[in-house]
């Protein structure tokens, strides 16, 4: 190591080791808090995005959505296509669906939700709606004349302020009238009330495809096949695999389908995140700057004397840079420990959002970015005041 750096390190080490421990500890704690602040909110936001994504996959689309070929309204021979898709490597399961509009009437209350006709057994292998039955039971493959209603639509939710029409509190066992767009009306018994925290379930109704076929007068109606793959994240690649295996229908990924919604959410959160990170960084720079600046002002006379006896400016500046780096390293480590403790706590006591419990999602990129930002802030905050003070005339510094 060079002579100047050796002397600067020597000075910094002694000033830290024998300086005011209370001030040092306080500064490190402030840095630790800033570090936590830099990471915590973005990781919560990332956790919310992860939750939304997972909900979209689990309750709305699966990983891939197969839709009718261009110019067609139905998927031809959906059961055979499902069997074909299920045989493709990387696919866990797939399920046919028929979704249409409809009108549900109960005791004079009328709503027009999306009506989804499903194969209950296959559906359970692709989506997790069956785990969200708040009361009653899920549909069985042999069911006819049974309907599942989303909680919001049923009107049992006390969310309040929602002007969406509901069925005014329909409960399990009640009979509702369902009319499909072809004008056919049939009575259904409410078998279960669903509550998944996502509007695609809570504002919808579900019947079996068998009932839909009967009402529509079609043998095997399906206008979508939802596909669950083994891993999430390689959805585009899996789409190509399906195409390579001869699936000629249109294939979408869950991200394609929810792009607008997700982009809007991620975009909004991204703005909040950027503001929060920016404010945290400014706070970090200001705090480190103030603490080091106060320390330097306190030692202004001493700096003047060091310069008077021939200790170079660069040595003095570097000694404060070393101190800033030490404080930053300790602050980052302490912040990391604090963050781990908070994450551990939240793992046991998750924050419950309307969509479900949110676990903070720690992105390595964010951690690296935060550590780098904190070090950059520390270097600036260590350099600037020491540079300014050592620029001062020696006699002015000595006189204080």
């Amino acid at each position, binding site marked *: 190591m060079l*002579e*100047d750096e*050796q*002397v600067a390190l*020597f*000075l910094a080490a*002694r*000033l830290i*080791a*024998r*300086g005011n421990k209370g001030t040092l500890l306080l500064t490190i704690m402030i840095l630790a808090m800033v570090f936590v602040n830099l990471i915590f909110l973005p990781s919560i936001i990332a956790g919310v995005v992860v939750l939304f994504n997972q909900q979209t996959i689990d309750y709305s689309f699966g990983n891939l959505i197969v839709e009718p070929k261009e110019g067609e309204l139905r998927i031809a021979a959906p059961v055979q296509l499902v069997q074909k898709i299920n045989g493709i490597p990387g696919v866990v399961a797939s399920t046919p669906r028929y979704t249409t509009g409809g009108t549900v009437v109960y005791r004079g209350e009328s709503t027009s939700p999306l009506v989804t006709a499903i194969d209950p057994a296959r559906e359970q292998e692709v989506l997790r709606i069956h785990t969200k039955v708040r009361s009653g039971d899920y549909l069985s493959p042999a069911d006819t004349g049974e309907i599942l209603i989303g909680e919001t639509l049923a009107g049992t939710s006390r969310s309040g302020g929602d002007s969406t029409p509901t069925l005014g509190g329909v409960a399990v066992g009640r009979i509702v009238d369902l009319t499909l767009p072809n004008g056919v009306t049939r009575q259904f018994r409410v078998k279960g009330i669903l509550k998944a925290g996502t509007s695609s379930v809570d504002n919808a109704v579900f019947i079996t495809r068998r009932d839909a076929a009967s009402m529509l007068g079609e043998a095997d109606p399906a206008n979508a096949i939802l596909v669950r793959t083994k891993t999430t994240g390689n959805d585009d690649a899996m789409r190509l695999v399906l195409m390579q295996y001869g699936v000629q229908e249109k294939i979408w990924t869950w991200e394609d389908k929810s792009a607008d919604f997700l982009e809007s959410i991620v975009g909004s959160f991204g703005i909040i995140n950027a503001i929060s990170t920016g404010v945290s960084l400014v706070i970090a720079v200001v705090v480190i700057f103030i603490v080091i600046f106060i320390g330097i002002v306190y030692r202004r*006379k*001493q700096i003047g*004397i*060091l*310069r*008077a*006896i*021939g*200790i*170079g*400016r660069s*040595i003095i500046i570097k000694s404060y840079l070393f101190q800033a780096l030490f404080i930053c390293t300790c602050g980052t480590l302490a912040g990391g420990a604090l963050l781990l403790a908070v994450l551990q706590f939240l793992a046991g006591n998750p924050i419950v959002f309307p969509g479900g419990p949110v676990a903070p999602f720690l992105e390595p990129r964010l951690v690296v970015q935060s550590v780098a930002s904190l070090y950059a802030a520390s270097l600036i905050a260590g350099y600037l005041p020491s540079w300014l003070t050592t620029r001062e005339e*020696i*006699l002015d510094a*000595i006189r204080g």
Partner: protein
Amino acid sequence: MIRGEHLTKVYGVGSVEVRALDGVDIEIAKGEFVGVMGASGSGKSTLLHMLGLLDRPTDGALAIDGVDVTRLSEGERELFRLQRLGYVFQDYALVPELTAQENVYLPSKVRGMTAKECTVACRGILDQVGLKDRAGFLPGELSGGEQQRVAIARALVNRPALLLADEPCANLDSRNSVLILDLIRKLNRELRQTVVMVSHEDWHRRYFDRVLFLRDGRIVEDEYGGDAPGTA
């Protein structure tokens, strides 16, 4: 050793001009122990600051150890202070977080000595000022006299051409003042160390080879003692 011609320092305060030094001519030989005395505001500290390269003259020429110091850049002045000057301040000015030995070690380390050379030099000079056994103490654990002796050791560790002392006994009682003056005198004699010391205590005169009296920024009296080395 030191040759100053027409040294002038003018401070401007608004439209008021203050002449802290008003055309001082000065010549000090190697090995002299020179006292600079005068009333408050007479310019003695300004002269010392100029000799210590802590301040620049408004006008005039100054050569120390054969170097025209008025032409040096800020970096060269920094190096000159480190290598050729030693400075003792009124209030000791030690780094409180460094032990006596570390305070002395610092300028020698900056000068580029190895750790071993620094340690030998530090121990030697601390022995000379009588603080060999107090080397590991922090300034706060030392008396005022001991702290000033550490400051003297720090100033001398690099064997400077010129030792400058700015009222080094101002914060000390009589007993400690005598100890410090005896020490400076001893070092001056034994090492042929050139010393310029500012003082306002009349009884200090007996230690000086020569006394410069300043009034209103001018040397009004230049009094040699009987055994001044420069006049021998």
